[in-house]
């Protein structure tokens, strides 16, 4: 099964945000967007343009940290969120190193890019890719995206972002300026999994249950013994 990814060559991005508005129209997100939420948006920073969107990590921190399994990664490499399983604990907000999940209190759901899975599964590019006037956004097989990114980056002495951050992502950005100087989060080149708060909480819950259970058992045994002696 194909694994997908984006390549964003920011040398061709002008910050027009046609991608942002197309996403809003494609996913009918007008009310949310009017309240400041966006699945993808380009922010005009002093040293460059900051693309804020889900990175569809290889080892998503949101998936690892979600206690209810609302976040999950599909075989196509797409990180999705199912609001029906979400308990609104916002652990993912803390866990995501790219500051992606936005909690919409009004609709009680997270706002996050879905890689237009509804289009991708039909063989159509995501809406943002279709709309980009300069071709700064491309989409395709993740392996090919990574290879192209490496070649273009080397040939043009560009920085890459998303290649190794958080253990690798499916959104590779190429830029002239150092990413951190533009405002991209300085993310470690590995993912932290299996040490999320849910494991600690789970362990504490088990310990409590065991203690309470054993205490009750012991008290009951004592009661029975006392009755016998009487």
């Amino acid at each position, binding site marked *: 099964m194909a694994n997908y990814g984006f390549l964003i060559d*920011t*040398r*061709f*991005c*002008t910050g*027009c*945000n*046609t991608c*942002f*508005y*197309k996403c809003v*129209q*494609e*996913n*009918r997100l*007008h009310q949310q*967007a*009017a*309240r*400041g939420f*966006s699945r993808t*948006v380009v*922010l*005009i920073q*002093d040293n*460059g*343009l900051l693309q804020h969107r889900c990175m569809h990590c290889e080892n998503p921190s949101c998936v690892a940290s979600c*206690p209810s*399994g*609302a976040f*999950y*990664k*599909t075989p196509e490499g797409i990180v*999705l*969120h*199912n609001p*029906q*399983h979400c308990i609104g604990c916002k652990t993912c907000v803390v866990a995501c190193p790219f500051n992606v999940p936005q909690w919409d209190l009004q609709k009680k759901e997270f706002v996050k890019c879905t890689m237009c*899975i*509804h*289009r991708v*599964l039909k063989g159509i590019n995501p809406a943002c890719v279709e*709309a*980009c*006037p*300069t*071709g*700064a956004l491309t989409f395709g097989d993740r392996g090919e995206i990574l290879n192209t990114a490496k070649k273009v980056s080397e040939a043009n002495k560009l920085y890459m972002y998303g290649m190794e951050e958080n253990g690798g992502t499916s959104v590779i950005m190429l830029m*002239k300026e150092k990413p951190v100087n533009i405002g991209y989060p300085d993310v470690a080149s590995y993912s932290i999994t299996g040490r999320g708060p*849910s494991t600690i909480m*789970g362990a504490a*819950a*088990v*310990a409590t*249950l*065991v203690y309470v*259970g054993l205490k*009750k*058992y012991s008290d*009951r045994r004592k009661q029975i013994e006392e009755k016998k002696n009487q």
Partner: protein
Amino acid sequence: MKTAKLSRRQLLKWGSTSALLAGFSPIFKNLVPFASFAEATEKEFKYTITKKIPQVCARACECDCAYYVVVGKDSESGVERALTLEGWKDDPVSRGKYCIKGLAFVDSMYDPDRLLVSLKRTNPKKGLNEDPGWVIISTQDALTDIIQRMKKFSREEIVFCSPGDPYTNRLCRSLGVRRSDQRTECFGTHYYINSLMLTNPPNKYYSSTYTLTHSVWGFDYSTTKYMIWFGFDSFTKCGKAGILNHIAEGKRNGTKIIIFNPMKTPIADGFADEWYPIKPGTDLAVALAMIKIIIDRKLYNEKFLKEYTDSAALVDEKTQLHIGGSEGNWFAWCKTHKKIEPLGKCDDPALEGGPYEFEYQGKHISAHPVFQLLKESIKDYTVEWASKISEVPQEAITRIAEEYAKASPYSCIPNLKRDPAGPNYANSWRLMHAINILHTLGGSFDHEGGVLLLSDVKIPWLEEIAPPVKPYPPLPAEAPDFRHEFPVTENIYQKKDFSAPGHYGIIGYGLYHTKKIKCVFFKNPFRGLHALIQPQMVEKALEKMELVVDWNLYVDDLSYFWCDYILPGTHQFEEAKLDIRQYYPKYPCYVAGSAVQKSPGDCIGWGGIAVKIGLALAPEYWTVDGSTNPEKVIPTNTGDYALKKQGIANNTKEFLTQKGGIWIHKRPYPNWRTIREIGYGRPEGRIRIYLDEILEAGHDPLPKWAKRWTEPEGDYRFSLIVTRAPWTMHADPNFLNNPVIKALCEKNFIDRVWINPQVAQEMGISEGDWVTLETNPKYMTVLPRPVKARVHISSRVARKDCVITFHGLGHRSPKLRYAKSFGYRDGDLIPQKDPNIVKKYDPTGMGWVEDVYVSIKKGGRS
């Protein structure tokens, strides 16, 4: 039946074991296949498509991208409506792309604040503090009222504020009234200098167009090898899909792009090979120095100059005019035969030298070739001089001039709108002249890879399909915008091209001071009061007007506070269209669009209004036989006529239904052919470098250095750089009243004035602080109105002597629920001009939109 007994001990044992297992569930969690959670609704489309309607974007910018409007059913509401756009790959302009403004246009059809009925004011007092007392009136009744009231005014008392579209042109000419429009704020210098140098309207390919932006040519962005942008990259350009897709292709092909701009735009981040934060208003110095380098080092295309320009044409030393007239048969000095010969027949014309002495029409003449005069004109404009003025390094100016010349004719200096050589400064018309000369020296005019001229397809004016049966009445001798004081523009307007832009930079002054006008009719769907610089003068003047009418899609500031009647306009997607690809004319092309929906409510198209008023007030010009019989109304479908004449289709409907709505002739670009057909000089057309008309107006016929109108003084030391967000267009509520666009503006600080970080530090200003911007009172003597705004500190304001403002904000109308009170109005800072001041500096009479210095003071929260 046996029953299983479970003792309490057994229950406790099993229960605690289960709890233990449940506690370890996180371990197993990840092993649970996602399929059990995979009913996510994200895998479904949020809409179903029912149809795709071809359209042409005619009001968001000058590109006129063609695309499809996708109509379908929204899964949540179940309502069928326009949802989004889809690209039209065959369109040579957009090539399957569209922009955020095009997308926003789709949603604007359903803006809850959209005006769908006509309104009539019942409170005769106008102004910001008056309740208009609007009542709904049928559009038919409103027009009847308006027509009755217009009958009471003389021709001298009426002005139409509208671009010169075919209907407005016909209406104003038939009524014998003046027209003024805001395109002087955008295109005025381009238009007039281009007209005087080459396009000489009405030429063979002179066309009425939907957008009426009046640029007369495009640029071959994808094939050019070298581009110089004198501020061509405003923030607005960041959003123009119809240009960007070509520029991106050019960049991939290796085009080198040099940018001169005091602000660092997002386009510069990625597209600029070199970027220089030039001192505002000094681009002219760099352009003049480049001309000198190219001439001194003989990097020009001599053959092109001799064959396609007036470079060898002789100019009389005494009269300082072309011998043979400005449009006549010119003469050259033949180096071989040592005598004058007709320019077109001379095999060895002199470009330099002189004075050449000869007899002509019984007089002794002493003359120089134009090229020699140009050489003398720029002799003092050294790179040292230019560098000192512009703060661009000398080495850069020299190298760029050489590189540009060597890349010619595959080089260009694009200028489409208010940015480069637009009406920004008092010296902008000179910059336009200099830029065109740079194109001329390299032979980039009318050549692949350079400047592309219109050819082969046109859309006629109404006069062509329905000639007036008798001459139009004369216009009033005096224009409320003082156009009559500017012979260069007045001559073109009256005798050559009635659609020529004029003179919004002075109309406020005219309406306020002269008080002759009693009736103002605005055709306003996208600009309104914001299109006017120093609108406070117009606001005051309109308070006293007897009749003010607006045709608009919204009740904006102008409509709400100062109009007597507001007529609801049609949305651009509710109109059928035929368009030529004016901004990318490499291939002759027609593209058509269909109405996406019928206009709701009581909306009326501008053409309908013009015909009604015309038939009522000047019927002899609106009927085919000059009668007053409305049954004989003139045909107005210029699109059908154009298609039939070209042999493409019988009408637009057939073109759309049977030919796919697009016709394109992909032939190789005919280099240097259109110059012959439209240019000056006879028998074959040429580019004019030397401008007789400018001389006759008392100005320099060849570009000379001149400073800006204003100088920094004391606290008034910040040069105003006016731009617009990539996702808005003028003050158009179609975008600014869109809550999604508004949220995007807020995310990117578009609702703030941008100042340089060092300036902020020196003045103790922090991000988000309120400041007051004020114009030097020396230049704004009447009705000053300082602007209060919040600040965004950004190093994209690359110079300490600049401040960036975003145009189009600051609506006050209570009928714009999202646009109201959002941002500030930068137009309040730009002075309306006394025509006597303008005449001194600028024969084209433009608005000088950025020629102003302001002070910044902390505080002043509005």
